[in-house]
């Protein structure tokens, strides 16, 4: 009898252990995608030294060269104003350098592969920009669900980093590796 109780206890323990999987984070696909919660941000610690200056063009280029993309034609979009309009990012919240908005983007025609680097006026601006980009990613997920389900995983696991004023978004063939690459580049 004691042995039976032990076995039952062990099985129940196993069941409880497995049921812990129910303690998951919320479904990444909300009912209304434009109101998607944003929780994939890495904030700069309050005690961090003065923020390092990044050149968005150089950083975007380094990410483009350092990550693996499915589409061989992941190319730079030169029209900076258009990039902001495309993602519905409020241009007033984006920092300027030499009269040009500090945003750089590489993207592709046949896949959702993307590198987007943006420097906002402040951290709130970077987070607002991420929300706008997330809305676009959600609309891509809607489309690819029907026509290209193999792209969904890379969209759902996109690298999204907010570091101070800086926003980096990468959608690549290997987002885990891309995260490490971006992490190294950001120091």
């Amino acid at each position, binding site marked *: 009898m004691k042995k039976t109780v032990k076995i039952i206890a062990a099985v*129940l323990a196993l069941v409880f252990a*497995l049921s*812990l999987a129910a303690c998951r984070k919320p479904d990444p696909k909300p009912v209304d995608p434009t109101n998607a919660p944003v929780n994939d941000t890495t904030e700069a610690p309050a005690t961090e030294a003065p923020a390092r200056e990044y050149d968005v063009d150089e950083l975007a280029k380094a990410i483009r060269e350092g990550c693996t993309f499915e589409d061989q034609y992941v190319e730079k979009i030169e029209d900076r104003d258009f990039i902001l309009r495309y993602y519905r990012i409020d241009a007033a919240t984006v920092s300027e350098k030499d009269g040009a908005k500090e945003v750089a983007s590489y993207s592709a*025609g046949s896949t959702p592969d993307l590198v987007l680097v943006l420097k906002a006026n402040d951290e709130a601006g970077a987070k607002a920009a991420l929300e706008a980009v997330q809305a676009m990613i959600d609309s891509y997920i809607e489309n690819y669900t029907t026509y290209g389900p193999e792209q969904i995983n890379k969209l759902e696991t996109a690298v999204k980093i907010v570091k101070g004023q800086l926003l980096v978004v990468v959608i690549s063939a290997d987002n885990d590796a891309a995260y490490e690459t971006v992490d190294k580049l950001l120091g």
Partner: protein
Amino acid sequence: MDLEKKEKKYTKAQLALVIAFCAVIGLCFILFLALPKQAGKLSPLEFRVLQDHPIKGKDAAALREDIVKGDLSSNVDSFLEDHFPARKFFVAANAYYLRATGRNAVQPVIMGRGDRLYDAPIDLRLKFYSYLEENEGCLEKFAADNGLEYGIVIAPNSALTSVSDLPKLHLEYPDAGIVDKLRQDTSAFVPDLVELYSSMEDDERYFYRTDHHWTMDGAHLCYRALCGILGVTPVEKSEFTVEEYEFYGSYYRKSGLWLTSPDKLEIWRSPKLDNMTVSIGPEVRATVHKGVYDEEKLKENEIDKYAAYLYSNNGLTVIENPEGNGEALMIIKDSYGNSIAPLFAMNYSTVIMIDTRGNYYQDAALPMPSELVAKYGVTKLLVIMGTESIVSNSQLIYLR
């Protein structure tokens, strides 16, 4: 004494219940461990990629990251859901149970009479579906800036062409109101396709039973109606050779109603269609095909056979017909355009198709739509979309 016996019996019954419960759970767990997995692979039934193994191939740092972010438990949960023993059976059991209890009428995919599946109505209260006015303004501006005569063709939800076949408790479809609004707010010609299809006696053959698209007959009926407006002579069905291919569409894949019989996709053949050139992507690195059908997508093991029409959805597709009328037609479209565009290519020398939803503006090498209008001397534009696309952020705002 009696009480003691009863208690013993009761305890035995309780124990048996616990053992049975654990046995079922344990059996499922053993089966879960033992059965082969399709982790990270495409499920042909549901046309989605199943959750990959949550731990395999990850080093300690990556695992730690997953645990901190809450991704590990989420991935384990999804992995269990996707690889649960007899998952296909349980999904179907739930779908048919909902149908038996009348609750299928408010599910994302509704089953009507005659083994027909329908999409639920879109909810215009959602922000996601609030872009109609913005899209109207963008189309008006683009047409005016480029001197284009244009039409907006809204492929309705198939449910509207056979409302009497829907379950009684179904929700209302807003499609008619959207078409009315487009007629009021724009200078475009906007045909009422609900009326067109509903007026036909055999209205069931114009949309697939298991997919959201129109059939070739449905596309052809629309094409004929538009030819009158465009001033070209429609090519009749009798001039094509028709081939049929069995397939299951998008509704089927989402429904869980696995006992639904397969659908039939028609391919209309013609030497003229075979002789057309289809260029996909920017001119500098375009993929060029002979003929309008992707024969690979018609093979038996292919899931999405509708993708055979014009090689699926691409930012820019240009069809050239050496036997055309010397004119060019531009079509801004979603996937409904893929099956109807070859019919217009039977008349026109060039059909330029733009799909703004996906990656059109993400491709740095693609020209602006207005540059294409100038290059090909386009004077007429058709916007061909399903209801969902015209009210969503289909990125028409960037037409320039």
